[in-house]
């Protein structure tokens, strides 16, 4: 690996790599840039062909108009209610189960663990039909409950939290046990604070999944005041088919919260994927 020829080829390869990465990054970002560009154009300019990239002048009126055209504020509120409830539920339920599977020896634990992990092979789409019938029977159609309850636990979350609790040194719990602490107190006061970064990862992944969820609201929410942002935008698209600037403005607004969370907490997202490999 020495010599001028090698160092030249080394530099060539690096340039090639950077070129590939740059083209790839462009391909990833252009759709978002294009939706932003379209959202800032009046309808007439958006229809220009071949397409114009730079809106002149910037027209912010689409961002004002869509709030009155559709109950967008209500959809944001619905998305927030559902996503926050689902996230809180998962934080509690997943970490309780993950803790028990990692730290409490009890009969049937390994079978339970295997059973929960195998639920990862049954994603929601495939059981849509029986879940719909079940929600209908439970009276959970057309209300928040139907969009929240099925998401309150995630097998991925239990798995993630179990992995986290496995890394806590046993000595810490031993000390608490000698002091006569019950399991719930040990869980709450000693173990849980030690896995805060993992809780953060879990919260972000669950929030993102719930915020972006399309199918469950589609099944549950018939009336427009219960729609979440993704469902509302799709319904909006079917009504205002030709007005792309409005649609793109709504898309930009829907992407902003997740983009913000992602930019600020990127490393938690990355770690979540790297640990579980799952959404």
């Amino acid at each position: 690996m020495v010599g001028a020829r090698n160092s030249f080829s080394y530099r060539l390869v690096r340039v090639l790599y950077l070129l590939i990465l740059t083209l790839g990054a462009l391909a990833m970002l252009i759709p978002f840039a294009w939706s932003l560009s379209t959202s800032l154009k009046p309808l007439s300019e958006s229809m220009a062909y071949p397409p114009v990239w730079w809106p002149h002048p910037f027209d912010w009126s689409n961002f004002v108009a869509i709030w009155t055209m559709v109950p967008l504020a209500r959809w944001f509120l619905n998305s927030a209610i559902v996503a926050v409830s689902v996230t809180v539920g998962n934080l509690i339920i997943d970490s309780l189960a993950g803790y028990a599977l990692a730290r409490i020896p009890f009969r049937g634990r390994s079978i339970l663990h295997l059973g929960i992990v195998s639920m990862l092979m049954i994603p929601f789409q495939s059981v849509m039909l029986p879940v719909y019938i079940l929600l209908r029977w439970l009276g959970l159609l057309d209300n928040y409950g139907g969009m929240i309850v099925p998401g309150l636990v995630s097998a991925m979350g239990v798995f993630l939290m179990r992995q986290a609790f496995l890394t806590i040194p046993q000595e810490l719990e031993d000390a608490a046990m000698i002091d006569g602490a019950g399991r719930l107190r040990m869980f709450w006061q000693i173990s849980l604070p030690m896995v805060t970064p993992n809780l953060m990862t879990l919260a972000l992944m669950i929030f993102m999944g719930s915020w972006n969820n399309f199918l469950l609201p589609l099944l549950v929410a018939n009336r427009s005041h219960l729609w979440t942002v993704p469902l509302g935008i799709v319904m909006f698209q079917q009504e205002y088919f030709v007005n792309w600037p409005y649609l793109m403005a709504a898309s930009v607004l829907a992407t902003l919260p997740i983009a913000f969370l992602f930019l600020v907490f990127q490393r938690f997202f990355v770690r979540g994927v790297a640990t579980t490999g799952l959404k």
Partner: protein
Amino acid sequence: MAGIEGAGSSSLPAVAKSNAFRRRARRELGVGYMFTLPSVLLLFLFTLGPALYSLYLSFFSWSLLNHMHFVGWKNFEQLFQMPLFWISVRNSVVFALVVVPTQTVIALGLAAILNQNLPARGFFRLAFFFPAVSSSAVISIIFMWIYNKFGLLNGFLSVFGIVGPDWLGNPQFALSSIMVLNIWTTSGYFMIVFLAGLQAIPAELYEASAIDGASRWKSFTHITVPLLSPSTFFIVVMGIVGTLQMFDQSFIMSQGTGGPLNSTTTIVLLIYQFIFSYGQVGYGAAATVLLFILILLATLATNWWFKRKLDYL
């Protein structure tokens, strides 16, 4: 646990110690069940239970409004004679066969490059990963606009004098367009999984192979690829499970119809239509059962293939 008890009660007589141990173990058993109960209950109610329930429903005829009655294997027989069912199976299988290898190879390539010591790695990782955290609904809408007859893609192609089709309105291109969208969304996501796997490969292996005079490509195919196979296996299985139940993109881009000419009807979209358009719960349940079998077979085949490949190494 023995260590804990030993440390906690070393001054107690042996009998009391074993009693305390048993009490603790009994209490622990209850606590273990209590902590896992909410998860188990909810997973049973909304995942395992529904999977079993769909098996039960697949033997009944029911429209949600009338009384259900037992029909035996008739739903399956009807389904097998239905051209639309086979179209949906073909679409889903073709979709998986194209998307899974492509996204796996792209993800591996990007990860291998990003694992080098290059400038702006953080930015690139961010850019590739971002589509995966965005909403499938929003992305589908954005791509509908890009794929429009007079959209960005055809505008770009016109620079080269190519007159592009109406990508989503043309049965020849609609499914492929959704494939591209799907690959675009998930490649960066799986790249992160590969990156985690790559970081676990010891650097000494590469140094040793460089000393032996192996080229970059050779060390990639002889060290990186084989050592990454646990990650690859995982990514392929998750890819299969994900692609075989693709729904959102098809539904949104075809306005729920699976059109044009059923070219984007996937199995899950057909299941949706069985409930909400045709009121045929039994057919939908039978299709659900067949989807499970398809996913199971595909996963087993992948498992077998990876095992065989590992034996050769």
